[in-house]
């Protein structure tokens, strides 16, 4: 390993400074300030508390669902981007990993329509007359 590489390895950098200049550093391992992890950790606590409070206060309907899904996506995003370092990976890897799960959304849509149709048929033919 060259001296330059050793030097880069010990170097710290702020994540806000563009990925281009620091790409070589990342090849030698993901190094980000500890403070960044603590901040993300704190946010995950806040978001989880918010999720819990949605249930605790018994919110209902679209408000409940939009809040639950919002907090879920924000938490997932923070974990993948910072804890799993996806924000600093090569784009080729990022797209290879993140696009397929987004395609799963199509499957979700199909199954929502399908289950609503099944539910409709069950109500139509099997529900006990009252």
């Amino acid at each position, binding site marked *: 390993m060259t001296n330059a590489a050793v030097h880069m390895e010990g170097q710290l950098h702020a994540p806000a400074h563009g*990925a281009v200049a620091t790409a070589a550093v990342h090849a030698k391992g993901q190094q980000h300030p500890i403070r960044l992890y603590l901040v993300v950790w704190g946010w995950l606590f806040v978001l989880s508390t918010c999720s*819990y409070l949605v249930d605790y206060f018994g919110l209902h309907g679209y408000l409940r669902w939009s809040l639950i899904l919002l907090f879920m996506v924000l938490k*997932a995003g923070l974990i993948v981007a910072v*804890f*799993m370092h996806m924000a600093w990976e090569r784009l080729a890897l990022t797209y290879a990993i993140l696009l397929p*799960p987004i395609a799963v959304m199509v499957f979700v849509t199909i*199954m929502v329509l399908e*289950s609503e149709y099944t539910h409709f048929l069950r109500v139509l033919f099997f529900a006990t007359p009252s």
Partner: protein
Amino acid sequence: MAETVLTHSGQSPARPEGWRGIAADWASDQRAFKNVSWGKAMMWIFLLSDTFIFSCFLLSYMTARMSTTVPWPNPSEVFALNIGGNHIPLILIAIMTFILISSSGTMAMAVNFGYRRDRVRTAALMLVTAAFGATFVGMQAFEWTKLIMEGVRPWGNPWGAPQFGASFFMITGFHGTHVTIGVIFLIAIARKVLRGDFDLERRGFFTSRKGYYEIVEIMGLYWHFVDLVWVFIFALFYLW
């Protein structure tokens, strides 16, 4: 490690970034994902496959729940606990969520200290992570025991739709298995870190290959994924 081509000065040539970089990486005649080591790429690909498995479980659960005409048990009540005479809804799951998030925090810090070659701190943080994981599994065992005592089975439950039991045991069971495997993985790597295997370039027992501190990050990816899956289970199974 990641570099395959070196210039005369011993450094890898600059790789294009952005869309040009994606095209260059995928069109490569050597390997895709330049500057990403095999170990990391393979862990990501494994996690992608695991994502599909968990997606299928959650999707089946969603389909069962949306299509049944029998009432679905209210998770808020099912997972409520009586603490000090107070009836608190969903409290057990909330505590489990905070424990798992904390384990992700300590894991992220362990990765950082690993790359700084601070052996003791890395191993200590990994063992704390493992302890959080074990606590989570312990609480899950308590949760399962409580529900089984109340009569929940994979084929039925006292409060309504029988698919509730099947979904619950399948989804949380599969997730709990992942946590358990993660705890074992964490302890194994923490031992290697503490013993200095990655500084001494000691060869692995099974593989006879030298390990690197990067394995801490790779196992961190697995651990954060377990936390990530819980985020979805928490929202879609317990809060729905």
